């Protein structure tokens, strides 16, 4: 099964949904598409608007490969379930996003070797047929970040939330 997600963006992503519909028709593989607020409905894929995150993660765990837009939520979910994934960045010139910032994350996924990035939609069938295995070494720095945030929360609780290197109004920084 291929799980496809376009995120919560209000702009449609027909380029991706159309390509996945063709892949479903040509290969016969089961394709499940989260279409969000989009108005493009695939004919050969199962589809839905939104599901709770846990249900999404369950689908993603079952997927042979995940195909998603290069939004942070979708990429985090794909990394979380540790399945092979392909990112297709939304582009401004196709009116898929307000700007081209999704290119940054797509390139980062590729640069770090976590998954494939498809910039030309004609490359998607090959990418789906031969995805990159998920790297076993991948380990996000989440605990470090949570600890850093926790540290700041504790600083505030202790009455010491001034800017670094500058004493706050109670002079305890």
């Amino acid at each position, binding site marked *: 099964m291929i799980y496809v997600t376009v995120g*919560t*963006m209000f702009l449609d992503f027909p380029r991706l949904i159309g390509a996945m519909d063709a892949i479903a028709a040509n290969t016969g593989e089961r394709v499940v598409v989260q279409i969000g607020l989009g108005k493009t409905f695939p004919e050969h894929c199962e589809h839905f608007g939104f599901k709770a995150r846990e249900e999404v993660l369950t689908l993603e765990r079952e997927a042979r490969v995940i195909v998603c837009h290069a939004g942070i939520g979708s990429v985090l979910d794909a990394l979380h379930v540790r399945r092979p994934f392909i990112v297709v960045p939304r582009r401004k010139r196709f009116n898929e996003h307000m700007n081209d910032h999704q290119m*940054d994350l797509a390139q980062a996924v590729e640069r770090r070797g976590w998954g494939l990035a498809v910039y030309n939609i004609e490359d998607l069938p090959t990418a789906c047929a031969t995805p990159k295995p998920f790297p076993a070494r991948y380990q996000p720095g989440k*605990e470090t970040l949570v600890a850093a945030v926790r540290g700041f*929360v504790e600083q505030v609780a202790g009455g010491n939330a001034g800017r670094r290197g500058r004493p706050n109004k109670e002079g305890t920084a």
Partner: protein
Amino acid sequence: MRAGRREDQRAAGVDAASVRLKIALVCSHGGHLTEMLELEGAFEGHDTFYFCYDADTTRRLPRAYLVPNMARNPLEFAKNLVRLGRIFRKERPDLMVSTGAEIALPAALVAKLFRVPMLYIECGAQVAHASFTGRIMYRLAERFLVQWPELLDVYGPRAEFRGSLIDEAASASGQRSSETTPVNAP
């Protein structure tokens, strides 16, 4: 106009380690919300409420103030300032945390007015370019974290890389190109 729940508790003799804060969590409804939910462990033992756009994903949150997603409408921005003023007066948050996006801006202005300290965590989608919201929050927030070491030099010396929801733990040795000491040193 200080929010001040924590001052009340201190005055009542509660020690710093057990002060229970009220934390305002501000984010939009997509990936920014996913990131905030991932950070929830950092707020354990404190009270939180969300300020978000109204969407399928945010309606599932237990304690949330939801506003229409009309970010580019100046009237809606002004309305959000009034709404936030009311919310801050009622909730009296001690701290505001935001993972973006532009919904952080009206909240940051109100937080400044109420003298509520802010922590901004730049979205993991910003890898190599500063976001519009990030550039403003860099100036307003007490602490400013980025999730990719590549972004440190883009923002400037006040930006910190202290782990990431997305980038690998191995990158936690990430350094500014201009520095020799790791910025994540405890």
